[in-house]
């Protein structure tokens, strides 16, 4: 039997759902444990940063990195893991395109701090104290990670070999990825391990020529389970989103939220969807267009729910600071 796979799992700016998703592979987790030695998994086992720095370059076979990069600490660890891993995998929507934390790019650090440390109704902060990277504590100067002005996807900070999409990736997707790695059946570098075309391709709802006359939010209507959700006024991200999730949302009569990221030929998921929706709005003139558009709650958060950090205007490599 081949030597066991050295596997690292790390968690940056994310909710933790990706880690849970790995556990969600149920009994297959045992197969994973069988096939791999887990050398790093902070959520499940105790590790120190020194443990990482002690590892030799190439000593990790695969690093499943979930979460986006928004602090100096996360960047540092990502770089350290990259240097020691044969394969770096952006695991989940946050690592792949910034995910939900990426929506922070709609504003900036200053604004976020204002909200968090000053403006919320439950905050009392009369001295207006803000997090500082250096703090002269009684035990000496303390250092805290710095929060960046914007959120970065993993591949904007380090080179990434494969992408495993999803918020979180489905157990099937995870298992497919792991199987590919363990068996050595690796696709070309840069591949996203999921479908190629958009979700609509395998969606069985009935599709016709589209016109949106009214925008609806999922709680407002009970959608016809047979008909295309977009045609019913629900913003379904299916047309721009990569296939492979198994239609979990649409099968339950909920519109696709886009967590599998852009399909193969789409460079900017949000812009593409925005364009598509704007094109099928049933309006006569500028005024009625504005009126209809005004009824759409949070368009930016809808079309870029998972991919703002990788939208065309934000997609560039992070330089050194």
């Amino acid at each position, binding site marked *: 039997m081949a030597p066991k796979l050295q596997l690292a799992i790390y968690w940056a700016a994310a909710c933790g759902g990706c880690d849970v998703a790995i556990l969600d592979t149920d009994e297959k987790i045992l197969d994973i444990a069988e096939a791999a030695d887990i050398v790093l998994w902070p959520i499940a086992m105790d590790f120190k940063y020194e443990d990482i720095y002690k590892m030799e370059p190439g000593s990790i076979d695969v690093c499943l990195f979930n979460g986006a990069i928004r602090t100096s600490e996360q960047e540092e660890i990502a770089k350290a893991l990259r240097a020691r891993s044969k394969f770096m995998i952006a695991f989940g929507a946050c690592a792949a395109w910034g995910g939900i934390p990426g929506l922070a790019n709609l504003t900036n650090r200053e604004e976020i701090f204002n909200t968090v440390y000053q403006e919320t109704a439950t905050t009392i902060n009369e001295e207006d104290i803000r997090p500082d990277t250096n703090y002269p504590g009684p035990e000496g100067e303390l250092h805290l990670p710095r929060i960046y002005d914007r959120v970065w996807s993993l591949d904007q900070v380090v080179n990434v070999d494969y992408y495993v999409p999803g918020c979180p990736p489905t157990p099937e997707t995870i298992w497919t990825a792991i199987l590919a790695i363990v068996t050595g059946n690796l696709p070309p570098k840069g591949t996203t391990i999921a479908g190629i075309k*958009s979700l609509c391709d395998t969606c069985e709802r009935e599709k016709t020529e*589209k016109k949106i006359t009214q925008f609806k939010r999922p709680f407002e209507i009970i959608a016809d389970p047979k008909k295309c959700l977009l045609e019913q006024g629900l913003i379904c991200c299916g047309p*721009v989103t990569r296939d492979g999730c198994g239609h979990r949302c649409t099968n339950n009569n909920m519109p696709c939220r886009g967590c599998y990221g852009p*399909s193969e*030929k789409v460079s900017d998921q949000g812009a593409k*969807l925005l364009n598509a929706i704007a094109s099928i709005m049933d309006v006569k003139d500028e005024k009625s267009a504005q009126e209809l558009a005004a009824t759409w709650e949070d368009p930016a958060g809808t079309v870029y729910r998972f991919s703002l950090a990788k939208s065309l205007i934000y997609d560039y490599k992070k330089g050194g600071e």
Partner: protein
Amino acid sequence: MSDHKIGVYVCHCGSNINGVVNCAKVTEEIGKLGEVVVAKDYKYMCSDPGQEMIKNDIREKGLDRVVVAACSPRMHEPTFRRALEGAGLNGYLLEMANIREHVSWVTKDKEEATKKALSLVKGAVKRVKLHEPIEEREVPVTNTTLVLGGGISGIQAALQVAEAGHKVYLIEQKQYIGGNMAKFDKTFPTLDCAACILTPKMVDVGQSPNIELYTSSEVIKVDGYVGNFTVTVREKPRYINHDKCTGCGDCASACIMKNRIPHEFDEGLSKRSAAYIPFPQAVPLKAVIDDENCLLLTRKKCTLACVKACGAKAINFNQHETIHEFKVGSIILATGFDLFDAKRSPQYGYGKYPNVINGLQFERMTNASGPTSGHITLADGTEPKSVAVIHCVGSRDENYNKYCSRVCCMSSVKFAHLVKDHCDAEVYEFYIDMRTFGKGYEEFYNRVQEEGVHFIRGKGAEVAQKDGRLVVKAEDTLLGQYREIPVDMVILNTALEPRVDAEKVAQTLGISRSGDGFFMESHIKLDPVTTTTDGIYLAGCCQSPKDIPDSVAQGSAAAAQSLAIIATGKVKISPISASIDSEQCAGCQICIGLCTYRAIKLNEETLRAEINEAVCKGCGTCAAGCPSGAIKVSHFNDDQLLAQIEGVLA
């Protein structure tokens, strides 16, 4: 990546570009870029020597890509494409950077302009590397023509095409042809009677074997492209059997709505019945039943006096609208104009004071077969002793239309003459500038001055009523004094405006309108007859206000364009089109509704969208809308555009 050999040519356009942009510097900087093997600037790149320079470089230096930084590609892209082809290179391996309209004409700061020009050229260089050779397509031409609008210019165009032996479909919205000219009495400057010169042409239209006339009809859909249009026309019912109707007018006399409906042809100065003959010289000279006022059609209740009166048994209330479909090679648009509604300028009292009328109403009044049998009369039936003519109502005015309506000065002078001629009243013309630019026009103005008309240089500012008379308030600017001139009648010479349905027509035909709302020509000076859509031509006032001689000339010019296509037998159509990668298409059908040209259909078997490339115009709407990135437009694909942006930002 394979290395390209790119030639960059920066045009000075005389001083048009070089006066602002430092062309030498742009050339020098761009020459430093990788893969640019030659960079040159020249005074007139579009001239013969300029083009020769490019051709020689292609041959001698083996260029495989060319960038020309000059004017708008609308102007000279075809010129330079031909130059490339002349040297054996595919014309689409060219990219133009517009450093005239986009830079020198709109930027004052020379340094900024030079910087911007350089950025645009860099973008073009980066982009041209990704260009691919494309072959133009040739398609055969249908040798029929559709003329939309039966006014004087449409009639002229239709007759000329028909005389050349080709079939014409003439579509008119009203129940008769002749347009506005049919309402006139005399025409300037020769004072020919309008009917005398127009009626024979109208009769010719009716009799020509090559002209199929559809009145009460409108175009509802246009599919296809130059040489191969399919036009759908809706013909409204007239409730009269044309084959039987003799135009005798017995139905009109019998109709119980007689003298109750304002007559459009008389601009509301007379009343008609619900069944009526539009006017005595109408072509076709057939009765029509107006479905908005006919009691039977509106209230289902009538004595049917018309049916009883009609000896020819021509009335048929069971008529329905008919849809016709025509295959034509080209379309001539001659939809004419609307008159500015003087009620929009309440200060002139139109609609409030009965003796304030507009120009067309005056025309009807002086027309021998008009509502007053050619007499100029006030509302009380008497003759006016003094008449004011106010120029530029709704024209040359930022509040309404900025343009000059071009015909009003001359028609005002004609009105003055007719007043003098008919009732010898005093006439006061309130004008800003007298514009009498045509052949014989100034002479006519001179003649009318000698007839004793008072020309007051100053725009009529207001019309008031004082002691039962109208008073025109204005400054006599040559005198330098405010004046109030009492008159019996005021004629408001109102602006010619784009027709109220111009936008709808523009959308149906896929053509543009200029800022003033009239249909837009390809080039205001050098191509005033063609539109930016191949195979669609303009004639008459739908392009801009014009008088009869100019409308006729443009009608003939449009006919010549149409005949030229027919004579060649085939047309080149743009090879730029969209294509669908069926591997990527998810069948979501967003694109189908987006295509203005109806070029996309769903393949029912594969459930993938498919584009008919012959119909596709390459507009790119579908590519922008396609959420899965399956649609690409050749020559304008994402990679090319992103490369261009990258170049500009570099």
